[in-house]
C-alpha cells in the first residue's frame, strides 16, 4: 500500500513538474494596461454577466460636470461567482461604486478592474485574477502591500 501510494505521488509530481505552462490569454495580455492603478468613483451603466468576461460599464463625472463612460474587464461569470460570490444581480444601473482599475495605455476609458467597493466601504471584489493582476492586487491589506514591495 505504501509503495502504491508512493508511486502515485511520484507520477503525479512528475506530471505536474513537466507540464507547467504560463496562463493563456485569448483576447489580450497585460501589455495593453497601464502599470498604475487609479481609483474611480462612478455610477453603474451596464453590467454584462456574460462570457468571455464579465464587463462593467460606469459613468464618471469630473469637477466640471463632464461625464465619461468607462468599461472594465472582470473574469468569467463562473470565476466571479466562485471567488467573489458575485451573481447576475450584484450590480444595478445607477448605483455608485468605487473602482480600482488599470487604464488602457491608449488613454481611452477602458480598463481591467482590480478591486470594487461600495460607498459604504463594503468590498465586492477583493482583487482581480485578470491579466497581470498578480502584481496589482489592489485589495491587499497594507501589510500585504508592504510584503509585495519587499
Amino acid at each position: 500500500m505504501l509503495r502504491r501510494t508512493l508511486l502515485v505521488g511520484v507520477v503525479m509530481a512528475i506530471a505536474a513538474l513537466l507540464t507547467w505552462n504560463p496562463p493563456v490569454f485569448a483576447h489580450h495580455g497585460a501589455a495593453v494596461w497601464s502599470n498604475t492603478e487609479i481609483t474611480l468613483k462612478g455610477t453603474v451603466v451596464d453590467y454584462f454577466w456574460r462570457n468571455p468576461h464579465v464587463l462593467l460599464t460606469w459613468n464618471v463625472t469630473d469637477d466640471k460636470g463632464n461625464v465619461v463612460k468607462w468599461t472594465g474587464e472582470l473574469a468569467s461569470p463562473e470565476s466571479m461567482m466562485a471567488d467573489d460570490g458575485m451573481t447576475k444581480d450584484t450590480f444595478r444601473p445607477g448605483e455608485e461604486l468605487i473602482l480600482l482599475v488599470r487604464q488602457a495605455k491608449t488613454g481611452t476609458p477602458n480598463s481591467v478592474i482590480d478591486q470594487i467597493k461600495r460607498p459604504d466601504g463594503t468590498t465586492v471584489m477583493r482583487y482581480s485574477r485578470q491579466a497581470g493582476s498578480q502584481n496589482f492586487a489592489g485589495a491587499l491589506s497594507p501589510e500585504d502591500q508592504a510584503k509585495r514591495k519587499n
Partner: protein
Amino acid sequence: MRSFAIVGLVFVAALLPFESAALAQQNANPGAEKPGLEVPLITPGPGWKPCPRCKNEAYAAADRKKENVDTRPFDKHNITGVWSGTPQALDDNGSNFDMKTLPPFTPYGQKAYEATFSDSPEWSSKDPMNICDPLGYPRSFAYNYGIEFVTLPGRTLEFFEWGHYWRDIWTDGRKLPSNPPIPRFYGYAVGHWDGDTFVVDSNGYDDRSWIVADNRRQNAEKRAAGLPHSDAMTIREEYKRLNYGVLQLKITITDPKVYTAPWSTTDVIALSPDSEIAEHLCVTSDSISYDEQNTKPTLSSQGK
C-alpha cells in the same frame, strides 16, 4: 517498483530549480491569498450542484476530502465522473501539454504555425477562440472548465464545459473510418480497455482548430500563436485511474504533415465530486460585443 519510485524522486529533485522559478513567477504576489470557504457557495438551488469552476479551490478541496477520493474503493475500468484541474491545482483550466517535448515542424508545419501568429503583440488576433470557432479536440481537453465522462453501453460520452461541446467515443467494436467523409472538429473516436488503461484512438479531424495555444510565444515578435494540425492528425489517448480521485492520461499526437515525430504529453486530472457540468457557451455575438467595447479600444493602431 521501488527502483521506479526512486528514479522518479531523483527526476523530481533534478527539476525542482525549474519548478521553483515557475512557481515564483506564478505566485508573484505572495500576499494575495486565494479566496476560500468564506465566499458563499452559489448553486442554482436545492438539489443542484455547482459547476466545477463555479466553486473556488477551497470548496473543491473540501469536496474531495469529504468524498475520500484518495482512499475510496474504485472500479479501475470506469472513468465516469466530472474531472477538473489537477490534484495540485484544482482550479486549473484543463490539462497542460508538455511543450518541451514538442517535435520540430515539417516545412509545411512551419508555414502553418507562422499562419497562426497574431497581428500584434497585444492580443491573440488569430485565435479561433476569439470568434467562438469550436476549439476541437484536443484543445477542448487542454483548455476546459471541467469535463465529464459518461459510460454507456457501446460508447463513452465526453462532455466539455467550455463551449458545451461533447464527443462520442465508440466502444462497440467498430473501427476508425479509413477515409472519413466529413472532417470533424472532434474527430471520429473509438475506445477499448487494454488491461487497466482506457485507450482511445481517433482521426478525421478538421484542420482549422489548434492543438493548443502556444504559450511559449517563442516567435521573434513575441506574438501569440497556436500549434496547428492537419487533417492527417491521429490521436491516441490512454487513461488510467490511479485512484478514485486521480486520472492519469497520456495523449500522443501523430501528424506527419505538420510534425517530424509523434508528440506525447502526460498529465493527471482530478475528480471534481459534487459538481455538475453547466453551460459555458462561447456566444459569438457576446465575444464580438466584448471585443468592440473593451479589447479593440485598448490596442494600438497596429493591432486593430
